[in-house]
């Protein structure tokens, strides 16, 4: 690959060429997670729950933040993964954790692929309604299939054998759960980050920004969306599967409207289409919910409602978006660099 000699490396080209390189602050979430592990050994259950919501929110970010697929039914895939693990373990078919997760991803991906293939022909409000109805239908199905799913009560006390045959999942001291989830989150995050910075990911942002133009540059838009939706579903399925393993039970709450709304709120609160919005949003939401929702449940709901109204009206980039604006304000204005060799016209 040769660079045309008459054209010096333009700052814009350099910026794009370096866009994917790791920055120092990208290590912070992982350092913080490890620090949490040592600092709060009594709150690892909460920490595990938080990490799982980060993973779930990242899966949504890929579909909603990058490709602009606005769905109200993402918990369908979380639930599909959770019930895959739950049903297999409860009925003594399969309970090894890692392969169980792979199966959860596979089942959720299948649900995502099939529903995406059919539903992604529609857009806007119709698509919103269809995703919602699909999720609620799955929830009803799980409610009805007592024999397999345990119905309303779910499947309690799943028997999950030690990770790698060594590390026990102790429900009282969930050290294994926390580190296991952290590891899976890390791998999934690397994968999503790779996708986001790839040409494929760039194309997804193109679909988000202007679907009609993507057709006009020759992109098979629907195929791309279905692929993205399927991958997103698979990761949501992993989040659901690992939730079932870490908690050793499954219930209807894994695929209900509550969970779908929560993950949407988390992502929007943090800032979608930004990779790290899921982290920021999940920490802010889960910590606040943890402390407020038990003591002042009504105030929590009121505050959450007002927050959503404010975000929708004034801060569409979420917390990260606000941060970006502040950073730009604080930074001294640098005049745009003119290449010295070019005389101004």
């Amino acid at each position, binding site marked *: 690959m040769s660079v045309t000699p008459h054209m010096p490396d333009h700052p814009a080209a350099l910026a794009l060429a370096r866009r994917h390189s790791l920055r120092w602050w990208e290590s912070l979430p992982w350092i913080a997670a490890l620090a949490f592990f040592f600092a709060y050994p009594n709150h690892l259950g909460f920490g595990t729950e938080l990490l799982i919501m980060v993973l779930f929110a990242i899966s949504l970010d890929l579909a909603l933040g990058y490709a602009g697929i606005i769905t109200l039914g993402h918990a369908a895939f979380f639930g599909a993964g959770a019930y895959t693990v739950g049903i297999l373990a409860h009925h003594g078919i399969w309970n090894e954790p890692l392969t169980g997760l792979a199966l959860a991803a596979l089942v959720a991906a299948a649900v995502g692929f099939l529903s995406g293939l059919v539903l992604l022909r529609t857009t806007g409000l119709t698509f919103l309604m269809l995703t919602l109805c699909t999720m609620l239908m799955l929830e*009803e199905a799980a409610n009805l299939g007592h024999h397999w799913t345990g119905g309303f009560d779910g499947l309690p006390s799943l028997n999950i054998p030690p990770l790698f045959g060594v590390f026990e999942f102790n429900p009282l001291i969930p050290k294994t759960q926390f580190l296991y989830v952290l590891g899976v989150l890390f791998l999934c995050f690397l994968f999503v980050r790779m996708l986001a910075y790839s040409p494929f990911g760039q194309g997804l942002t193109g679909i988000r920004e202007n679907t009609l133009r993507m057709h006009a540059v020759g992109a098979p838009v629907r195929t791309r969306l279905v692929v993205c939706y399927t991958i997103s579903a698979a990761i949501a399925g992993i989040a659901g599967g690992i939730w079932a393993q870490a908690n050793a039970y499954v219930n209807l709450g894994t695929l209900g409207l509550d969970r779908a709304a929560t993950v949407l709120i988390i992502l929007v609160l943090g800032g979608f289409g930004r990779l790290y919005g899921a982290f920021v949003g999940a920490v802010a939401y889960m910590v606040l919910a943890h402390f407020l929702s038990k003591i002042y449940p009504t105030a929590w709901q009121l505050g959450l409602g007002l927050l*959503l109204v404010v975000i929708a009206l004034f801060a569409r980039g979420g917390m990260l978006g606000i941060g970006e604006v502040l950073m730009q304000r604080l930074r001294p204005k640098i005049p745009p660099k003119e290449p010295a060799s070019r005389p101004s016209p």
Partner: protein
Amino acid sequence: MIFTVDNIASMLLGGMAAGMVLFIVSVGLSVTMGLMGFANLAHGAFAMLGGYIVVLVMRHWGVGFALALAISFVLTAAISMVFERLLYSRLYKAGELDQVLFTIGLCFVFIASLTVFVGPENQPLTLPDALRGQLDLGLLQYRTYSIFLIVVGVAIAIGLWFGFERTRFGAQIRAAVDNRRMAESLGINIDRLFAVTFGFGSGMAALGGGLGAEFLGLDPQYALKYLVFFLIVVSVGGLGSIAGVFWASLIIGVLDFVLKKYLPQGGTLFIYALAILLLLWRPQGLFGKPA
């Protein structure tokens, strides 16, 4: 399972009564969604607010059911118009995501506010004596209130249809639903049209909230509990179509009633599946115009 004439008639009547409440609540949502293209998930919250106003006004001021419904309609319409002018109007050009978030947030605010000011418990509605008991229909006896709901629902449907098809204001709304820019260039004041339509739609929701409180119950979770049903009715009927909402409400009301009786377990599943299939077959709904 015995299919007698009595049985079928009573199921139809019960389903129609529920369908009429669905219709009265949803019709406003259909028109505002069709007219403004706004994904208003707070519509159920306005219905809930209307129900609360009816119950509270009857309890504390001692006014009759009919007057309470009228007060609820006017108050809810007025409140919603304030919301429309101040907040909703800022998001007309925004994407669905912002609209969804905003209106979910509004739902939470309504739920929390009612929990604080009225309480988290169910608010029972006391029907006037005249609407209680059974009515002799010759062929069978049936709940007076259900018959009342059907009569009111049909009357409202006819009134709305007439207003929509035969009045100047209705013509303006239809023109704006079909082609907003064209309507604007014809000198229709879109801002005013939106505000009035939104207020009217929310007022209808309040009416439905009050009329349905007797059998749907009334607690702060109402705003989200029945939202999915309202949305299904609207999207199955077709955005902006009064006839569409009417028939979709009837179909879903009767189906739900029948299924709850004979298939208490899988009824809702069936309705979701039906809605999905219908929307895939006709994304614009039964009576909607193709995009």
